[in-house]
């Protein structure tokens, strides 16, 4: 699709108009500065140069507080692009472990973040059901609750790793439209049983209560398997940007289907062919076709350290770190290469490895001062191996615009400067 076309303008496109490019440059500058600050915060001053004695407070510190804040030296920030039709990227390079803090979970909105009164909130389930039902938020909270740790990823994530690539690109800018949370809510299957879903129902229409009234069709089979109608994220009520008071969570499936501000579910016997599953979120393919209903997110990984704009402090040991995930299930292995994919060695996976959740991998590498290209390659429990950029482009075509899960690389030069390996 067109780099200057509407796709680029409305989704995280690789080639943004000047105003947005300016915005982006600002966001990158902020991200870079935030990274440098957070790195400095993590590294204690060298005791030989600084005070030889440990710091001991001369007086008691701050009192207890109702709501905690980050340490003053820690500056974590999403990188917003666009405005009410836009997205904001999770700072992947600044995070450890697997869970994304809720206030840093990526955003993607089609018409801004609505302010929904939780008291007036209603969810309607109707269509091919025996009993059309309306639930309040309090009703939903009375049902047996279920929690699930899983990633959400915008299927437009990764365009800067596939099209119009640039060496000066951070993990946040390349893949920041993925985040992992613990979601809590009621199983959609429970609500469908309550409404008495009929045998002839094959598809559900899920509708959001934002100004776009965003709609997607969801197969009933997925709804009955593991779909959640979630009201909490990482233990607290959903944040407005994540769909307060209620959103759909479809583990492993493309972000756009996880409809936020969920207000209506309609059961039908065929897909509803909404704009978001026809004009958008379809994958142009070689052979002059477009793939529709490509729900599952294939296996993917990215090294988040070292990455642009890091400069390695010197030769020696360096732990390579990153995240891997697959919408098909568990990650079973991540291999790391330091020579641009010629040779690979297995990384260590942080346990427990959960299906359809970010999986942290780590690999201890010895840098001897030579130019190197670091890469990571994920494998999932279905035997699927994350493809190279060349493979994915040859299979799908350079203009395809979603589900861009190819291997990403980072070049390290002789001075230790790390940049994105922006080449096919």
């Amino acid at each position, binding site marked *: 699709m067109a780099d200057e*076309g509407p796709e680029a303008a409305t989704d995280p496109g690789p080639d943004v108009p000047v105003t947005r490019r300016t915005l982006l440059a600002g966001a990158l500058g902020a991200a870079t500065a935030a990274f440098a600050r957070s790195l400095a915060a993590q590294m204690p001053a060298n005791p030989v140069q600084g005070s030889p004695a440990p710091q001991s407070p001369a007086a008691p510190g701050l009192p207890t507080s109702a709501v905690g804040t980050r340490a003053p030296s820690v500056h974590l920030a999403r990188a917003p692009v666009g405005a009410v039709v836009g997205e904001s990227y999770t700072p992947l390079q600044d995070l450890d472990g697997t869970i994304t803090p809720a206030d840093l979970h990526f955003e993607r909105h089609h018409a801004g973040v609505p302010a929904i009164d939780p008291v007036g909130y209603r969810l309607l389930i109707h269509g091919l059901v025996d*009993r059309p039902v309306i639930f309040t938020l309090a009703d939903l909270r009375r049902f047996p609750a279920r929690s699930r740790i899983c990633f959400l990823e915008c299927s437009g994530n990764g365009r800067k790793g596939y099209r119009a690539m640039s060496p000066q690109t951070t993990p946040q800018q390349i893949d920041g439209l993925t985040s992992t949370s613990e979601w809590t809510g009621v199983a959609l299957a429970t609500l469908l049983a309550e409404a008495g879903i009929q045998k002839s129902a094959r598809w559900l229409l899920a509708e959001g209560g934002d100004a776009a009234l965003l709609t997607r069709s969801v197969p009933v089979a997925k709804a009955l398997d593991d779909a959640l109608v979630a009201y909490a994220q990482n233990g607290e009520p959903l944040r407005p940007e994540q769909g307060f008071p209620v959103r759909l969570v479809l583990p492993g499936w493309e972000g756009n289907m996880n409809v936020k501000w969920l207000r209506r579910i309609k059961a039908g016997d065929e897909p509803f062919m*909404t704009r978001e599953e026809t*004009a958008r979120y379809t994958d142009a393919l070689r052979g002059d076709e477009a793939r*529709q*209903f490509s729900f599952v997110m294939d296996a993917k990984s990215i090294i988040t350290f070292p990455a642009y704009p890091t400069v390695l402090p010197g030769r020696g040991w360096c732990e390579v770190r990153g995240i891997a995930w697959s919408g098909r299930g568990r990650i079973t292995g991540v291999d790391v290469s330091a020579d641009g994919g010629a040779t690979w060695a297995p990384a260590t996976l942080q346990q427990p490895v959960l299906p359809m959740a970010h999986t942290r991998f780590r690999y201890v590498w010895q840098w001897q001062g030579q130019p190197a290209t670091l890469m990571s390659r994920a494998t999932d429990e279905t035997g699927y191996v994350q493809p190279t950029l060349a493979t994915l482009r040859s299979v799908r075509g350079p203009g395809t615009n979603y589900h861009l899960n190819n291997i990403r690389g980072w070049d390290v030069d002789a001075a230790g400067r790390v940049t994105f390996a922006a080449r096919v």
Partner: protein
Amino acid sequence: MPPASERGCGFRIGDGRLARLSGGLAVALTVAIACRQVSPVRQSAAAAPARFGFGRIATVDEIRAWDTDVRADGRGLPPDSGTATEGAAIYTARCAACHGADGAHGAVAPAPTLVGRMPDDAFPFATDTTAVPTVGNYWPYATTLYDYIHRAMPFGSPGSLSPHEVYAVAAFILARNGIVPSTAVLSARTLPLVRMPARHRFVPDDRTGGPEVR
């Protein structure tokens, strides 16, 4: 089915009979502790009724007020109609500022370009990175145009167009794309009959799982 992360602890704990059968409290406790994360889910699943009786039945009027979606076969389209000629003035007043005076040029990002056909109705989007998708060259269903404009446009005051205005402005966009004549009357009966140039381009997901990259 519980999520896979909760499988693998398939005891019915919290069931008094199980504790007695397994010969003592210690065993039951060990199981309960080992499975503490999942035991509440298991318990409630074991005891769950077919229905809880929470919520209330929606009335016919409530459903009518919410049920505005339009399917590809036209189900959901309201009575009324409109023509491109009628839609031109609505487009100029309500849409052109963002989507360009004629729909083909001058769209203001992030508003997309709505009008444009490919030579021979080609579909080169996978290979030509400069190709601009539009209603005319990419959308598979004309009914989606009604559904989307009615729910989401004009951006800034969605839902402010009457059914007649939505039919008319949809007719205008389709006529600008050369898909219907400007005199065509679009209605609940005729809109589903409009054949979009890209209709046959769409294929369902053909990824089959497993190692193959597609």
